[in-house]
């Protein structure tokens, strides 16, 4: 006999709906975990990757013996964790004599493994070893820039795959509107050789230039490491085709516009309640922008008090 189970509370229903497949998807979360043995370096790497992705990552602290992503039976545990935590990316760290400081970056489609890239971490420098002014430190959750340098990213298959995986992993949320003052960080990836990529995380400082476009200065901030590609597994062709299917584009709904046979196109405008009696009258508004403040000071200095005041009141 089958029973229909529905959530008893609205909160539970909302949580389930959040995890459901949608046309426009949520930001993908990352699962960070490690296998039976990890090295000191690898622990630091995993911790700092978790720090980079703070809002959208889950870090497991126990060791997992039966996870071997490249073997056919070693991925069931990973898929189960991915299902329970709703994570589509995973970073699996392990250390062995054959593969020291091993990091497996993987992606999931429908909570089954889509593709994997195995890299070795070399020359790791943690965040603590960089000295910089704390004011320019990138804020948590800001959208990063990406700079990929090197012809090898196009010519070598593995590096091409790694480029896609790195872009996907560190992209963060997909936003439509970006605040230009909030550009904070950049990930610089250089293909040093046909197997190694140097990965750096820098903060962006915008400097005044003559034009409206500011000049960029990069200051190295975060962890920097060299990633040596060891193995990789490309996605299955059929699954890839399904995963790359774009959602059908829905035309934007135009609100408050309608057509009438006689009058033609009609629009509706909603006016807010206008309270004429309660307008602000004072000129000493705290926190005016610097230019306006300076302009006001200059006006006060020139002795056109009354006429200037009348003009500024009208402009308000």
């Amino acid at each position, binding site marked *: 006999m089958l029973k229909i189970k529905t959530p008893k509370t609205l909160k539970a*229903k909302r949580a389930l709906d959040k995890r459901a*497949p949608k046309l426009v998807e949520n930001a993908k979360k990352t699962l960070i975990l490690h296998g039976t043995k990890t090295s000191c370096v690898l622990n630091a790497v995993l911790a700092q990757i978790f720090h980079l992705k703070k809002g959208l990552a889950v870090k497991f602290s126990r060791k997992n013996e039966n996870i071997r992503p490249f073997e056919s039976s070693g991925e069931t545990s990973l898929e189960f964790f991915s299902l329970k935590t709703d994570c589509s990316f995973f970073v699996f760290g392990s250390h062995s004599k054959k593969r020291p400081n091993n990091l497996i970056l993987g992606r999931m*489609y429908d909570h089954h493994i889509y593709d994997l890239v195995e890299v070795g971490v070399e020359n790791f420098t943690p965040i603590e070893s960089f000295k910089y002014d704390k004011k320019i430190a990138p804020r948590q959750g800001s959208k990063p*820039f*990406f700079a990929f340098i090197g012809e090898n990213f196009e010519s070598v298959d593995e590096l091409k795959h790694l480029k896609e995986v790195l872009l996907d992993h560190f992209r963060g949320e997909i936003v439509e509107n970006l605040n230009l003052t909030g550009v904070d960080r950049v990930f610089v990836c250089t293909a040093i*050789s046909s197997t190694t990529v*140097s990965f750096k995380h820098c903060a962006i400082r915008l400097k005044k230039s003559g034009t409206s476009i500011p000049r960029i*200065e990069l200051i190295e901030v975060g962890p920097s490491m060299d990633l040596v590609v060891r193995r990789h597994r490309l996605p299955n062709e059929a699954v890839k085709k399904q995963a790359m299917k774009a959602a059908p584009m829905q035309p934007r709904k135009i609100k408050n516009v309608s057509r009438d046979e006689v009058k033609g196109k009609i629009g509706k405008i909603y006016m807010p309640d206008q309270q004429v009696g309660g307008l602000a009258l004072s000129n000493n508004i705290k926190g005016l922008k610097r230019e306006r403040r300076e302009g006001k000071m200059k006006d006060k200095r020139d002795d056109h008090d009354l006429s200037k005041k009348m003009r500024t009141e009208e402009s308000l």
Partner: protein
Amino acid sequence: MEAEKYQIDLGNLMAYDPSHHFQPLPSSREELSRQCLEKGTELVQGVVNALFSLPSTEDLDGPIVRLPEPSTRLPREKHLPRPKPPTKWELFAKMKGIKNRKKDKRVFDERTGTWKRRYGYDRVNDDRDVPIIEAKMTDEPGEDPFSKRMDEKKKRVDKQEKNRLQNLKQAFKAGDLPSHIQLAATALPITGTQKVIPKKASKEELEGVAGMAATATASGGKFDKKLPGEKPAKHTGKHRKFLPVVEGKGMGAQEKEQTEKILNKLMARSSHDILDVDRAVTMFNVKTEKQRKREKEVSLPSTSNKLKSKKKTFKSSSKKKQ
């Protein structure tokens, strides 16, 4: 530095320089990282140039630009939502051309003369509000019409639930169950492509299967390495009993008995198992003999009554008159 053509993906804020080679690989790490940063600065400057040239709107926090769609296509996280298969009613309505009419939440109640809800608390045609039900010619005497109404309602509700379950099963088969509903014999994954509902195996079943698997080796599972804490497998099958090679004094013709038993079972299709003919005949013979003996005793009064101990017969059959 000449402005080289970088591949810029504004939606992802990415810039890629495909034409850079590290011809002479820099000797030291500092030199390498300095060059990386230099190149990176150029690329980011390129992106920022493109970004600041987009039309921006002024906001409280600063200028806000509307980013274009990312040009690098990246795979989705979950599958696209599949269209729900139409329910039985939807198919029927489509066939008949029945359109859904929007109903009002408030309906005017004739009986009380007020506006009431169409459903829910204090609704229009509530079964409990009816005080008198007039008897019809077709009604049987002795039948409670109020309970009959309640039964009918219960039946309607059950039928609706059954139909709903059927519709959900159809949706599950098509792979598109609504995200907040789970069909459970056991808990199912909400997403994922599992098509079969796994039946919950009981503890006894699992133990039985595990026992069978454990003893399915050439040596009956005796020399297999056991995991820490594993209990020995249970043998719930029949143990074979072998007859002794040489028969002792007390046992007689056991092999004959065994084969006879088997033969009887094989040949006993038509015979009645309830009655064992030989035994019945023996019992009858014994009874008749005893009866004759008693009759003889009664007819010839025994001289030595005292010597003979009167045996009480506990058998109820001796009391029966034949």
